């Protein structure tokens, strides 16, 4: 039980950290100043969420792990983030598409996690939900703007949807550690939030003049929650962990 709670907390921390790190790469490269600042702020929110989860994880393990060692000294097989958070940014369309699909998942997920019997997970969810609400709104508006925009923007957001969609199935498939925590009402039953997520995504895609792909005939990537990643995570960690690996224990 305690071990599952630790793994589950890391899963949530890793989701936010890897998505936040990916988005942070846009800093200084956004299509215009205001949007550059917006995506940087969202990255900051996500990294802040991950700190809260890592700090909590460090308190529930018997090892001498700290929030920093959990973020900077684990290898890719130990990371259990959703694959959608680690895939490359691509263009602005792909970045906003994966952020929208992920943030909408976080939005419904945290609404459930608030009711967790684990008080600290519930508290982090309560805090994060307010921020995520803004992320859903911002990224959703971009989907609409690009989809219902020019021929070029429509082409790009369509391609983005096609590319990102096969990474959404995993969000609703519980890992073993999640299932075992359901009994004590610690974890969220992710299959329960699928309908709400679908409804929201369908609404936004419709307004963006895009067709909801559905998941009937789509092969979905899985494995991230159990440490089986795409080739991209190793590259992220190589950059993100470089300093702590090269100069162990260094501090600002």
């Amino acid at each position, binding site marked *: 039980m305690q071990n599952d709670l630790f793994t589950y907390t890391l899963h949530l921390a890793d989701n936010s950290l890897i998505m*936040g790190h990916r988005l942070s790469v846009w800093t200084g490269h956004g299509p215009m100043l*205001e*949007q550059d*600042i*917006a995506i*940087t*702020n*969202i990255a*900051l*929110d*996500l*990294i*802040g*969420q991950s*700190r*809260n989860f890592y700090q909590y994880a460090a308190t529930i393990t018997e090892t001498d792990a700290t929030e920093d060692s959990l973020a900077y000294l684990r290898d890719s097989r130990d990371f259990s983030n959703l694959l959608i958070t680690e895939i490359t940014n691509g263009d602005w369309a792909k970045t906003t598409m994966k952020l929208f699909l992920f943030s909408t998942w976080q939005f419904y997920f945290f609404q459930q996690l608030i009711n967790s019997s684990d*008080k*600290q997970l*519930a*508290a*982090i969810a*309560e*805090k*994060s*939900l*307010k*921020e995520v*609400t*803004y992320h859903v*709104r*911002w990224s959703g508006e971009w989907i609409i703007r690009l989809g219902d925009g020019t021929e070029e923007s429509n082409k790009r957001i369509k391609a983005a949807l096609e590319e990102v969609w096969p990474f959404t199935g995993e969000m609703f498939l519980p890992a073993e550690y999640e299932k075992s925590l359901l009994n004590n009402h610690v974890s969220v039953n992710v299959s329960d939030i699928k309908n709400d997520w679908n409804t929201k995504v369908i609404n936004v895609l419709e307004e963006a003049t895009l067709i909801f792909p559905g998941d009937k005939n789509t092969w979905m990537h899985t494995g991230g929650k159990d440490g089986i990643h795409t080739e991209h995570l190793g590259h992220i960690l190589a950059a993100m962990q470089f300093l702590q690996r090269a100069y162990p224990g260094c501090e600002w």
Partner: protein
Amino acid sequence: MIMTKIKENITTGGIWKLMEEIYDPEIPVLSIIDLGIIRDIQINNNDIEVFITPTYSGCPAMDIISMNIRIALMQDGFKNIKITQQLSPAWTTDWMTQHGKEKLKAYGIAPPLRKRFDQKYLEELKVECPLCHSQNTKLISQFASTACKALYQCNDCLEPFDYFKCH
């Protein structure tokens, strides 16, 4: 002896007063009391524990605020200082004092409008320009110079300005 002795008869009320002199490094007109960041203060002989709540999860000002609280308490003679981060109940702009909202406006940042964070905040808001007080303003970006603010522009005086978002 350089170390100052703890003042006689120190009260939590006195410490709350002391906290009014610690300012947000990002919005230097607001004290941490104006912002509603301090949730509780407990004193037990020489030990003091201050409970703070972050405005946003990733707000970089929180580390500096914690450090400034620690320095202020050390200068007051406390040795065993504990600063505990409390996430629940989550911080809301409702906790910002009226005095704080007025200072924010005078500083050129439109204060948060709604009383409570709810789904309705997603609707269009009429934010008053803190410079010319016109209601004829438009949203430029939902995220501005910091995560807690949005960027607006006044259609009358044409000045851009920050709006402290409801949260």
